[in-house]
C-alpha cells in the first residue's frame, strides 16, 4: 500500500463544553443534550447513537433545563430567563419567550405534554400552556421564598413537587396552591452546613417524592404526610441529578464526585409484597460532576462537566449481547471541525467563537516505518480570526486554493479573502453579503475555488461565483417540492459538475451544477448519512451511514456501482460494523482512483477497491507489519481495508498528495488538563 509521511497535528486546542442537561424522548428514541455554552445536540439512539442535529450555542443563553413535550417538541430554559422552542426540521430556534421571573433554573413538561412548568430565581413557579405554534402563560403557583431548582410532575398531572433551598414544596397543579412542605435536614455528617440545595426531585405515582441534595443525600418522602421515609447518604459531595425509569422501578442519581448510582425497587423478603428502594449499582464513568442523568428503558445516560456523554446499558434489560449492549462514551461531535487547503498545506480549525489557520511544516528527510522525521520547517500559526457577537460558529470552510475562508453563525455569514505575500498574510472581509445569506448550515468551495456552495435553513441550496475581491451571481438550486429538510452535508465533484447534498434524514440528492437542477436521488436508506464525497474522474458518490455501511453510487449511471453491490452482497467485516463512532470524512487518493480514505474517531482506513474484501474469518486489523512472510502469503492475505489505529482520537485525516497524510489528533489528556480540577477523593486511609 505504500509509505506515507504523516503530519501528526496536536495543536488543535479543541475542548468540548461540559454537558448541562440531557432529556430522553421515549417515542422517538432520541436524546437531547445541552452543553454549558448553550449548544443543544440531538442524538438518535436508534441510529447507532448518531448526533444527527445540533443547534449552535450562544454566550448569553446558558441552558439550565431541557425537556420534550407533546409532538416531540423540544424546549429549553436558561439563566437569561427565556423559554426557547427549537425547530427540529429547520434546525433553528422557533421563538423565545421571557418568563419574567428572573433566571430560570428548572423546567418540566406535564405528563400529557400539554403544559410547561418553569421554576424561577424569584421563587415563582409559572405554568405555560403549549399551543400548536407557541406557548402561553397561564398561571403562577404560590410563590416560594427562594429559587426553584427542580420540578417534577406527579404522573397523573395532579400535583407538582418543587425543590428549593432547604425544603421541597408540593403544589396542587389545578389551583396552584402549595399544599405541603418537606424540610430537608441541613446537617451533613453531623456538621451543620450552610444550606441544603435540592438539586433534583422526582414524583412517583404512589405519592412518593425522591429528592437529591447538596449534602449528598438521596431521600425518599411520603408527600401525603410530608414525612421522610428513607435516607440514603450516597456521597460526600452534592448529588446533582436524578432520573426515574418510566416503569418507576428504578432510578439513577449522579453525584459531583462523578459517580452514578442505580437504585432499584426490590421486595424486602421473598414472600412479602412490601418493597423498598435499594442502592444497587455504582458506576464511575466520569471524573467530574455528573450534572445530568436520564433513564431510558434499557440504559442509564449521564453527562457532566468532563464533557463525556455516557450511555450505560442495563444488562438485565438487554436480551442479547450485541453491540448495543456495550458502554458508549461520546466525547467528540459527529461532524467535521477541520478543513484543509491541500495545495497550500493549510488547516483551518473551527472553535466555538474563533477560527485558527495553520500552515503545516515540512521536512527533507526520509525514513522508514515508525520514524519521526526531523523538521526543516515547523508548523506556523498564521491567523486567529475571532467572530463578533455572542453566537457560536456553526460551520466554516477554507477553499482548496487557500484564498478564501467562509464561516457562519446563526445570524451572520462571513467571507474573507486571503492574500499571501511571502510570509505576510493579508485578510480582507468581503462586505455586502446578499440579504439571504444570513446563516448557513454547511459551506463548501468547489475544487477550483471559483464557486461557493451554501446550504441554509429551509432546505435552500445556493451557489455563488467567486471573483477577485467579490462575488457575483448568487443563484439557487431548485428546492425539492414540499421539503423543508435542512441540508447538513455537502459534497462537490472535483470537476465541478455535480453537487451532492444530504439532510438529517431525507437521503442524498445529487444536483447538476451547470443546470441548477436535481439530477437524481440516491435510494433512501434507514440510517442517517454521516459523510459524503464524490470521487475524481469516475464521479462515484461515496456515502457513509451511521450504521457503518458505506455505499458507492455512480452519479452518471444513476445506480450503485459494481463494487458497492459486491460489498453489500458479502457484507462488511463484523468488526467494521462494530465500531462505535461514525465516519466523519471521506476523501480520495489523487493518483490512484481505486483508493478511498475514510476515518472515524479511532482509526483511519484506506480502502483499496482492487483487493478482495475481508470476510469474518480474516483479520481486519493487524497492527504489526508482516515480517518474514513471503510475498505470496502477503498478497494472499491482503484485503481491501488498510486500517491504522496509530493516531487517536482523530478529528480529521486527509491526503495532501499521494505521499502525504495529515492527521489531526486531540489527546484526551490534553482536554482533561483544561478542565477544572475534579473533587479530590481520598484513596487511602488516615
Amino acid at each position, binding site marked *: *500500500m*505504500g*509509505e*506515507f*509521511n*504523516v*503530519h*501528526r*497535528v*496536536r*495543536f488543535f486546542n479543541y475542548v468540548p463544553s461540559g454537558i448541562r442537561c440531557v432529556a430522553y424522548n421515549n417515542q422517538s428514541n432520541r436524546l437531547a443534550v445541552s452543553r454549558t455554552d448553550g449548544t443543544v445536540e440531538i442524538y438518535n439512539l436508534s441510529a447507532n447513537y448518531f448526533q444527527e442535529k445540533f443547534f449552535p450555542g450562544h454566550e448569553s443563553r446558558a441552558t439550565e433545563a431541557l425537556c420534550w413535550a407533546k409532538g416531540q417538541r423540544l424546549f429549553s430554559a436558561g439563566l437569561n430567563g427565556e423559554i426557547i422552542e427549537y425547530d427540529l426540521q429547520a434546525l433553528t430556534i422557533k421563538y423565545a419567550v421571557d418568563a419574567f421571573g428572573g433566571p430560570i433554573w428548572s423546567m418540566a413538561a406535564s405528563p400529557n405534554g400539554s403544559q410547561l412548568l418553569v421554576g424561577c430565581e424569584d421563587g415563582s413557579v409559572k405554568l405555560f400552556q403549549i399551543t400548536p405554534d407557541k406557548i402561553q402563560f397561564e398561571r403562577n403557583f404560590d410563590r416560594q421564598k427562594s429559587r426553584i431548582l427542580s420540578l417534577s410532575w406527579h404522573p397523573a398531572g395532579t400535583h407538582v413537587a418543587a425543590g428549593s433551598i432547604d425544603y421541597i414544596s408540593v403544589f396542587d397543579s389545578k389551583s396552584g396552591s402549595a399544599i405541603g412542605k418537606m424540610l430537608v435536614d441541613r446537617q451533613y455528617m453531623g456538621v451543620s452546613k450552610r444550606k441544603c440545595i435540592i438539586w433534583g426531585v422526582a414524583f412517583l405515582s404512589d405519592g412518593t417524592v425522591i429528592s437529591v441534595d447538596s449534602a449528598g443525600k438521596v431521600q425518599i418522602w411520603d408527600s401525603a404526610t410530608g414525612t421522610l421515609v428513607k435516607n440514603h447518604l450516597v456521597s460526600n459531595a452534592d448529588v446533582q441529578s436524578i432520573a426515574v425509569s418510566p416503569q418507576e*422501578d428504578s432510578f439513577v442519581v449522579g453525584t459531583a464526585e462523578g459517580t452514578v448510582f442505580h437504585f*432499584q425497587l*426490590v*421486595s424486602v*423478603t*421473598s*414472600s412479602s*409484597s412490601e418493597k423498598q428502594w*435499594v442502592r*444497587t449499582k455504582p458506576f464511575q464513568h466520569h471524573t467530574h460532576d455528573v450534572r445530568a442523568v436520564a433513564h431510558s428503558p434499557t440504559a442509564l445516560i449521564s453527562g457532566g462537566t468532563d464533557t463525556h456523554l455516557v450511555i450505560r446499558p442495563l*444488562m*438485565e*434489560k*438487554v*436480551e*442479547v*449481547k*450485541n*453491540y448495543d*449492549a456495550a458502554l458508549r462514551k461520546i466525547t467528540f461531535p459527529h461532524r467535521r471541525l477541520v478543513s484543509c487547503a491541500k495545495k497550500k498545506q493549510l488547516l483551518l480549525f473551527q472553535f466555538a467563537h474563533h477560527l485558527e489557520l495553520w500552515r503545516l*511544516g*515540512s*521536512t527533507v528527510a*526520509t*525514513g*522508514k*516505518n*515508525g*520514524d*519521526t*522525521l526531523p*523538521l526543516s520547517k*515547523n*508548523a506556523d500559526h498564521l491567523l486567529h480570526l475571532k467572530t463578533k457577537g455572542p453566537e457560536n460558529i456553526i460551520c466554516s470552510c477554507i477553499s482548496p486554493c487557500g484564498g478564501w475562508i467562509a464561516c457562519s453563525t446563526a445570524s451572520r455569514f462571513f467571507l474573507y479573502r486571503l492574500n499571501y505575500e511571502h510570509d505576510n498574510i493579508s485578510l480582507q472581509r468581503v462586505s455586502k453579503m446578499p440579504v439571504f445569506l444570513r446563516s448557513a448550515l454547511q459551506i463548501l468551495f468547489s475544487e477550483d475555488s471559483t464557486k461557493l456552495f451554501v446550504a441554509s435553513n429551509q432546505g435552500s441550496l445556493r451557489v455563488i461565483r467567486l471573483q477577485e475581491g467579490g462575488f457575483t451571481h448568487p443563484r439557487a438550486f431548485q428546492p425539492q417540492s414540499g421539503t423543508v429538510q435542512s441540508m447538513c452535508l455537502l459534497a462537490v465533484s472535483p470537476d465541478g459538475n455535480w453537487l451532492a447534498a444530504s439532510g438529517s434524514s431525507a437521503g442524498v440528492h445529487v444536483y447538476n451544477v451547470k443546470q441548477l437542477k436535481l439530477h437524481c436521488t440516491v435510494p433512501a436508506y434507514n440510517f442517517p448519512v454521516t459523510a459524503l464525497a464524490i470521487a475524481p474522474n469516475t464521479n462515484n458518490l461515496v456515502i457513509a451511514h451511521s450504521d457503518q455501511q458505506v455505499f458507492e453510487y455512480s452519479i452518471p449511471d444513476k445506480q450503485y456501482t459494481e463494487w458497492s453491490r459486491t460489498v453489500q452482497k458479502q457484507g462488511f467485516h*463484523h468488526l467494521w*460494523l*462494530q465500531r462505535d463512532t461514525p465516519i466523519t470524512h471521506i476523501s480520495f487518493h489523487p493518483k490512484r482512483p481505486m483508493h478511498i480514505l475514510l476515518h472515524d474517531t479511532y482509526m483511519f482506513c*484506506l480502502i483499496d477497491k482492487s483487493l478482495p474484501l475481508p470476510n*469474518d474469518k480474516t483479520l481486519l486489523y*493487524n497492527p504489526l*507489519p*508482516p515480517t518474514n512472510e513471503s510475498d505470496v502469503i502477503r498478497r494472499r492475505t*491482503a484485503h481491501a481495508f*488498510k486500517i*491504522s489505529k*496509530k493516531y487517536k482520537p482523530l478529528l480529521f485525516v486527509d491526503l495532501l498528495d499521494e505521499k502525504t*497524510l495529515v492527521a489531526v489528533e486531540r*489527546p484526551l*489528556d490534553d482536554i482533561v488538563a483544561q478542565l477544572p480540577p475534579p473533587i479530590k477523593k481520598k484513596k487511602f486511609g488516615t
Partner: protein
Amino acid sequence: MADLEEGFALTAVPLGSGPDGPLGVEQSGKTDQFLVTDSGRTVILYKVSDQKPLGSWSVKQGQIITCPAVCNFQTGEYIVVHDNKVLRIWNNEDVNLDKVFKATLSAEVYRIHSIQGTEPLVLFKEGAVRGLEALLAEPQQKIETVISDEEVIKWTKFFMVFRHPVLIFITEKHGNYFVYVQKFNSRILSKYTLLLGQEEKCVIQSFSTSVGRKFISLMSLSSDGCVYETLIPIHPSEPEKNQRLVQSQLLKSVVSGSARNGVALAILDQDHIAVLGAPLPASKECLSVWNTKFQTLQTSKELPQGTSGQLWYYGENLFMLHGKFLTVVPFKCEVSSLAGALGKLKHSQDPGIHATPHFVNWETSQGCGLGSQNSEQSKRILRRRKVEVSVQSEVPASTQLLATIQKDSEKHIEVELRKFLATKRTPDFHTIIGDVIIGLLGRCKAEPSFYPRNCLMQLVQTHVLSYSLCPGLMEFALEKTDVQILQLCLQQFPDIPESVTCACLKVFLSIGDDTLQDTDINMESVSDYMDPVQDGEMEEQTAFLQNGFSPEEDNCDSCAQKLKEKPQATADESTSCPVTPKRAALLNAVLHSAYSETFLLPHLKDIPAQHSTLFLQYLYFLYLKCSENATMTLPGTHPPTLSQIMDWICLLLDANFTVVVMIPEAKRLLLSLYKFVKSQISICSELNKIEVSFRELQKLNQEKNNRELYSIEVLELF
C-alpha cells in the same frame, strides 16, 4: 450446515488388526464409552471424550474373536463370541476372559445384537435368531436353518420400531440379494428379494437403514458409486409371500465406481448420510457428508492414510479406521434447509450476538415471589420455565418440605431434603433454604433432643446461604460447640458479625484436643504445609533468608542475645506448629472470614491471655511458613494469605498488647515479631526508593512521547 470437526485417533498404538480393520465398534452402557473389538483377540473399552482406554480384555492365544463384543444394556455385562461358537459374558471387574462365564453353542454365530431397552439377540449364520436368555438357559439347543444353502449373510441390523424389536438381515446368493425382516412381537419373518437397479453387475458394498413412520428405509451403496434407497414396509400386506423390493437411485456417483474397497455408508439423520470412499478414481479416500434431500455435498474430509471401508455412527461421533488408527470424527448436523444445502445459511451463531453472560439481577427474586415475570425475562428462560411449571404445578416442593420439617423424623427429613436439593433451582432457592434452616432451628429449640446435624451440614453446603438468611444457626452451633458446622459457616457465609466470628475463635482455641480428635474437619487448608505427625525432633531450619529475614541474624539488640542461648528452641518454635492440624484448619477458617477492625477489636479483648498467645504463636508460625518461599504464599488449596495473617497479628496485638507483654511465654514471640517488622520496614523503604526513581524515569519517557504538538512521521500501511 453439517460440520465435521477435527478428528482424533482413539488408539495411540495401532490396532493389532489385519488389513480389514476392527471387527466392530459398539456402544457400551455409559454414554461416551464404546467397545472396540479387534479382528484379532482383543476387546477394548474406550472413553471417547478422554481419548483413553478404560479396560482391555483378550482371549487366549489360538482363539480368535469372530463377532464384535456388545454390551447387554439390561445387565451392564459384555458379550463376545470367539471361535464362532463360544460365548463369553463378563463385566468390568473381570480381568481374564478365560475365567469368565462361558457357553458353547451348537451352531455358528453371525452377530450378537444389543440395543437399549431390550435383551440381546443372537443371530446365527444359518439365519436363526435367539434371545440371549433363552439361549443361555439351554446352550446346546438345536438351531434351525432359515436361509438356503450358499446364501451368506452380508449385513444385519437390529432396531426398535414402535417399541418392538425388529431384526433385519440381508443375504446374498449368486449376486442376488434377499432381505429378511424378523419382527419379534408377531414372530413373523418376512423375506424380500432385492431388485437391483438397471445395471446387472454391480455389487452392493454397504448398507444402512433408518426407520420412518411406515417404512424402513434401506440405503445401499453400490459398486457403481451410487446410493440407492429401498423402502421396506413395516407392516407388510402379505407377510408370508416372497415379495420384491425395488431400489431407487438417491445419489449418483458419490464415490468412484472403480473403488473396490474402503467404501461405506452411514445414515446420519433423515436428510444426511456419511459416505466413506474415494470420490474420484485417483483421489485419496474421503469422508463426505451428503444431503439427500437436496443432493448436495455438505462437507468432506480427506483421509490420506487410507481407510478400511468400515464406518460406525453413534450419537455425534463417526468412527472409522484411518491408516492404522481408529479415528473419531465428532459431527454436527443441523436440520436441512435449502439455504443450508446450498451453503448460503447465515452462521447461526452471529458473531455479534452471544448469550448474555451471568450477572447479578436484583429483580429476579422479586419477580418469582410474585409469580409474574416481566416478558423479556420469561422469553429467555421459557424452556426452563416450562419444566419448572410442570414440577411446581403439583405442589410447591418448598412448602411440602417445610411441613415435613415440623413433624417428621430426622431420617425422613434428610431423605426429603436430598430430594428437594436434587430438583432444579428456582430463583428464590436461597430464601427457601433459609426458611428451611429457620424451621429446623425452631424445632431444635422446641425439642432439645432433636438435632438434624446432617441436614444442616447439607444445607450450608448448598453455597447459597448467608448469615442473615439463617440467623441463629451459628449461635446454635456455638451452643452445641459443633465446630464442624461452624467451620462450614465461616467458609461459606459472607456476612458473619464480628462478635460471632470472635465467639467461634474462642471456641476453636478452647476446645480440647481429645474432642477435636473425634470430629471430622475439612483439613484442606492445612494439609500441605503441616506435618500430621508431630514429632519432637525437628531438622535444622536455617534457610528462610528470602525477603531479607533470618531469625539467626544478629543485628538487632541485646535481647537477641537471649535468643542465641537457645538456638534449638528457636528453631523448634519457628518450624513446629503450636497447634494440632485440626485446630489449625479451624483457625484458618476464622482467618478467611471477613471482618471490620473496629467491630472486631472489642471482642478480641475478651480472649483469655494464654489462648491469644497460642493464636499468636500459630500466626507467627504461618508467617514463617509464608516467608519460606519467594511468592510469600502458603502451599495447598485455599490457604490463608499473607495479608490475612499479618492483619490478624496486628489485630491481636492491638487488642491484647498489655496482657501479652506481661506473659513470660510470649516474650520471645514478641521479640521475634519485632525483628520481623524491623527488617520488613527496611525493605519497604528501599522498595519505595526504587519505585520513586522508576516513576521519574517513566515520566521522562512519557514527556518525550507526548509533548510534541507537531511532528512528521513515516507510516506504512500494509
